């Protein structure tokens, strides 16, 4: 561990590599987490199948790539497929748990996560996959920092998608309806908004965002049927740390988590990378809880 830290101090260029990798991968985490924050904030449903939606989107792009279609074209296909899939999931499952207590939705989506992971495993096998994008890999700083062009493209696409979602939420009729429902579902119904349709659209939009994040992850990183739970936990870490309705916070937390994970994996060893994420979740929850305790004492 100390050896690895001394490498970082002796050769600062490594830091740039880690930070860049972290930012690129973190941008996709932020995208998926924004979807979770949307569903959480609007419908009060905690979607534990979030990561499996991501992985599913990745498999759509990867499968198209295997058929000879470039994974970047797979991105819009993945968005559409996941939007439809999200609608189906909403109609069959989420609609029925939306007004029950929150543990119900958590457990129902957990069951869904198990089904999805296993279905992907049966369909595509348990191997780790990457969608080949055939972009050049460039080196900077005397070959000590390598960045694949696809990562830059993916980073840019993440930004474009995020801006598109924000503009949609701000300006479109549906976006306004979603925000109205999030503020007060009953009042929105009184005003003539079909909240059921708004919920269905929100959930499908979340699935579509996950699909986009997954397609990008399949190009710049790896996908595997059982990696879903890791992505779910990442989204939860980001949303709990940032709070929902706070887009800037989600982006910062997502990028930060990506960088943290790279550093954790490098300093402590690759086998700790997953433990780092989960440990961070627990740390964030405990920190929030201590903060709340202090707040409660102040109120008393």
């Amino acid at each position, binding site marked *: 561990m100390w050896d690895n830290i001394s490498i970082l101090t002796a050769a600062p260029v490594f830091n740039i590599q880690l930070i860049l990798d972290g930012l690129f991968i973190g941008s996709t985490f932020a995208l998926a987490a924004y979807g979770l924050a949307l569903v959480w904030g609007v419908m009060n449903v*905690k979607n534990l199948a979030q990561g499996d939606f991501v992985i599913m989107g990745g498999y759509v792009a990867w499968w198209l790539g295997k058929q000879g279609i470039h994974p970047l074209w797979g991105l819009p296909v993945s968005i559409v497929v996941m939007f439809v899939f999200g609608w189906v999931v909403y109609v069959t*499952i989420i609609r*029925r*748990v939306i007004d*029950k*207590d*929150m*543990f*119900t939705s*958590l*457990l*129902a989506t*957990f*069951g*869904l*996560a*198990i*089904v*999805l*992971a*296993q*279905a992907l495993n*049966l369909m595509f096998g348990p191997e780790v996959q990457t969608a080949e994008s055939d972009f050049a890999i460039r080196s900077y700083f005397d070959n000590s920092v390598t960045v694949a062009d696809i990562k830059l493209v993916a980073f840019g696409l993440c930004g474009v998608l995020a801006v598109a979602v924000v503009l949609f939420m701000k300006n479109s009729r549906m976006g306004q309806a979603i925000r109205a429902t999030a503020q007060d579902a009953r009042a929105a119904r009184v005003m003539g908004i079909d909240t059921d349709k708004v919920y269905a659209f929100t959930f499908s939009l979340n699935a579509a965002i996950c699909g986009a994040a997954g397609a990008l992850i399949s190009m710049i990183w790896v996908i595997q049927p059982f990696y879903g*739970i890791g992505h779910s*936990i990442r989204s*939860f870490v980001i949303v*709990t740390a940032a709070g929902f309705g706070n887009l800037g916070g989600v982006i910062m937390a997502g990028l930060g988590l990506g960088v943290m994970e790279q550093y954790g994996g490098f300093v402590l*060893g690759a*086998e*700790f990378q*997953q*433990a780092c994420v*989960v*440990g961070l*979740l*627990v740390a964030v*929850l*405990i920190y929030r*809880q*201590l903060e*709340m*305790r202090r707040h409660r004492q102040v109120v008393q």
Partner: protein
Amino acid sequence: MESFNPKLHLPILIFGVAAPFVIPGVTIQIAVLWVMVLFALTWDIMGGQMGYNSLGNILFFGSGMYISALVQISMFANVSEYTASSGAVDFTYTNSEYFWGLGWGILAAGIGSALLAASLGWTLFGLRGPYFAIGTLGIALTAGELMGTWEWVGAGGGLAMPVYPGSADGKSLMFYFMCFFAAIGTYLFCSWLYSTRFGLAINAIRDDEQKAEAMGIHTLRYKTIAWSVSAFFLGISGALFGNMTGFVEPLEVAFPVATFGIFMVAMSLLGGKGTLWGPILGAVLFHILKEFTWTYFLGWQWVALGVLIIVNVVFFQQGIMGWLMEKFPERFGIIVDKKETAK
């Protein structure tokens, strides 16, 4: 506390005692069934009776397993030598060494897990509802990963338990009865616990924590004790299970969050949470279903499990016992006012 009911308890006792002699081929499966009953009962103390749905109770199963393994080994051997050799050097235990080690190991597993729960409770019990579920899930996942990197306890390669000095049949018979008695002990304790003031207090916490606190119930203390109780029995079950399989491995055996950790929730929900007999019924049904799908639908068993959970929570949330109570309330001593229902 439930008094002895010959129609209900006697057949179970007779089955439990006679099963390993009448159908010796499935002794281990039935022993696992008793462990499952214990799982469901201990989960229900928290999830059903107190309304704190933990997804990471499996943590105490694993901690009990590791504590008992370390106690059993360290009493008569050097742990680091033992794990480094990983079975290459023969550590033979005499009868008395093995059984003393086992006894102390089980006791230490129970107490150690209870202490772990008490210390975790101090920080985790501020989390409510789904946050608590996600937080406990996170802790159980981390524990598995961390144990997998700790060289002293064998890291990811695991740890072989001391070898039972005797025949294989004798071993399975002994652990069968230990699991059986552990399950009975848990049942009796829960049955007593729910009949006391303590049971009422944790029910009050489930119904409305703020009001319970306003009524003068020290909620944090009650919650911590309830979690420690469930951790105590889970730790014992972990020690028994570890010794029964003879091998401790961090991700699949000790902290199987995605299998046993989810099974205990699914079983309690299937049987009906918040009742004494619901988790037992759920565990029995689930175990039979599980053995069936694992044998005949290998590969699809996870899909079946996931669908079961979804259908269970979406359409059948009250569980079997809850459904029966709604259907035949008078059988459970619930008096239905005819004037109220006649309308």
